């Protein structure tokens, strides 16, 4: 039975309902409450003196303190660097995993890739402190081997933050990529090789373009995650790093200003959504060009 291409939703669209319900109740409504709060000076439920105001948004836009706009750029910049680094590290691993013949080997690498996600936020930071700090493993070894004289500042700055973030997010990148790469028919590469292309060229001109949807999907995921991270940057960045999520966390946890935090959250979400929608348009267009159903 051939289904005529129609522009009306098919019955299967109803399967959206559970997710839709979950999101409306647990995301849209609470977030709506928070957005509403961001236009108040206090909590209107508890505090009869709370008035409607746009001062939280004004505070961000005019940024008289000079740190809010910087925080937004830092957030996006760290997100971008983290995404690119995760891609560069994750792709070879995903490729290796996807092409691996041995089931045992595959399982072992899978476990090695997933393990970082399970370490737990705080312990992971202490582990990185041990590795990256001035008296840490890396610096001690480099000094011992005579490669450097003074310890490199690897921690309490943007470098340390990115390293720690990449470490957490590479597994997401790998697992997203490995599926896509695995699905690329190896015979295509072999055909290119038999036509005279070297391994590197076959990879660059066959495998890499075909894995582009995976690259974009993985990058989107990692970018979304890294621009909302705040625990890791707080613990790894000292004062050198101040991202918008860190600012939000500070406003909630130590300045006790949930209204301003809500406003910052709305701003962050809007910026992110713009980027994500643009990303998805590119992804859709690229996949469409390749004629994948």
């Amino acid at each position, binding site marked *: 039975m051939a289904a005529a291409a129609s522009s009306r939703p098919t019955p*299967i*669209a*109803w399967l*959206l309902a*559970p*997710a839709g319900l979950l*999101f409306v109740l*647990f*995301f849209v409504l*609470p977030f709506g*409450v928070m957005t509403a709060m961001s236009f108040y000076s206090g909590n209107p*439920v508890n505090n009869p003196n709370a008035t409607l105001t746009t001062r939280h948004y004004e505070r961000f836009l005019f940024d008289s303190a000079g740190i809010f706009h910087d925080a937004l750029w830092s957030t996006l910049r760290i997100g971008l660097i983290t995404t690119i680094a995760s891609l560069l590290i994750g792709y*070879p*691993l995903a490729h290796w*995993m996807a092409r691996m013949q041995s089931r045992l080997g595959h399982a072992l690498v899978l*476990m*090695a890739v*997933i*393990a*970082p*996600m*399970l370490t*737990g*936020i*705080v*312990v*992971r930071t202490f*582990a990185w402190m*041990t*590795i990256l700090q001035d008296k840490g*493993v890396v610096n001690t070894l480099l000094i011992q081997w005579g490669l450097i004289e003074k310890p490199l500042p690897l921690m309490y700055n943007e470098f340390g933050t990115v390293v720690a973030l990449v*470490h957490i997010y*590479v*597994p997401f990148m790998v*697992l*997203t990529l*490995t*599926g896509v790469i*695995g*699905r690329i028919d190896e015979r295509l590469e072999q055909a290119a090789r*038999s036509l*005279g292309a070297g391994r590197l060229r076959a990879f660059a001109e066959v495998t890499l373009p075909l894995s582009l949807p*995976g690259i974009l999907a993985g990058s989107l*995921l990692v970018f*979304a995650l890294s621009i*909302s*991270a*705040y625990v890791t940057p707080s613990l790894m960045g000292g004062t050198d790093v101040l991202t918008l999520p860190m600012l*939000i*966390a500070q406003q*909630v*946890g130590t300045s006790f200003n949930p209204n301003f*935090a809500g406003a910052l*959250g709305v701003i962050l*979400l809007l910026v992110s*959504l713009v980027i994500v*929608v643009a990303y*998805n348009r590119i992804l*859709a267009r690229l996949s469409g060009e390749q004629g994948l*159903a």
Partner: protein
Amino acid sequence: MSAAPNRRPFDAGRAAYLALNGLLLTFLLAPIAIVLIFALNPTPYISFPPVGVSLRWFDKFFSSPEFMNALFLSLWVAGCVLVLSIVIGGACALARARGNLPGRASLTAFFMSPLMLPAILTGLALFQAYLLAGIGRPVWGLILAHTLVAVPYVIRTTLAVLHNFDRRIEEAAAVLGASPIRVFFEVTLPLIRPGVFAGGVFAFIVSFDQFPVSLFLVVPKGETLPVVLFNYMKFDLDGAIAAASMVSILLALSVVLVLEKLIGLKAYVKL
């Protein structure tokens, strides 16, 4: 380069490839090795280099009712989240891919948005919502909150599988006389199963390791392991949290291994 596959005894290219991957694996595993060292180091503070090997932190972890309760609660919550997010996320992905809905790009963005919002805000917003609704902080509230942040992963991985799905298999089954429902259950579902379960693995891990959302939604004596560890660690610096971390890793890895055996994530790769 010759056209024939390399038969040279030392394949420099392949060696470099393996060396690179080895280096990357080292990067991934180094912090975990450090955590293991902490967990076995007998001194009551976290230091490097280690002074010995001792199981006292594992002992402390296992004999602490607080840690154990938290561990089981985390496992239980993660298990529920796994099931819920597979069902909800899988359904959503199917609808998005096959349902011919308008505004697909925006839909995807919408369902990804919990990932982009700092979880502390999600946690706070849900906490306020729960209080307003007067339901307090029940465990099912915690589970549903975790599901919210886990579902995007399942949607993502399932969509990826559906993307490259060869629909001719379904058409063939229909041609051979199977009803649409039968086609769905006996052809479609089994073929997307690996993608759904890969997302499920993510969901389990994300829930098990979830911290900021849990922070606001746990109750006394009903805290998840990451919350307990974080608060323990603010006041006490010893190897117990390293031991807890190692146990978490091993447990979660076992779950992943079991899932891998059951459905074979490699099948997901080779779809």
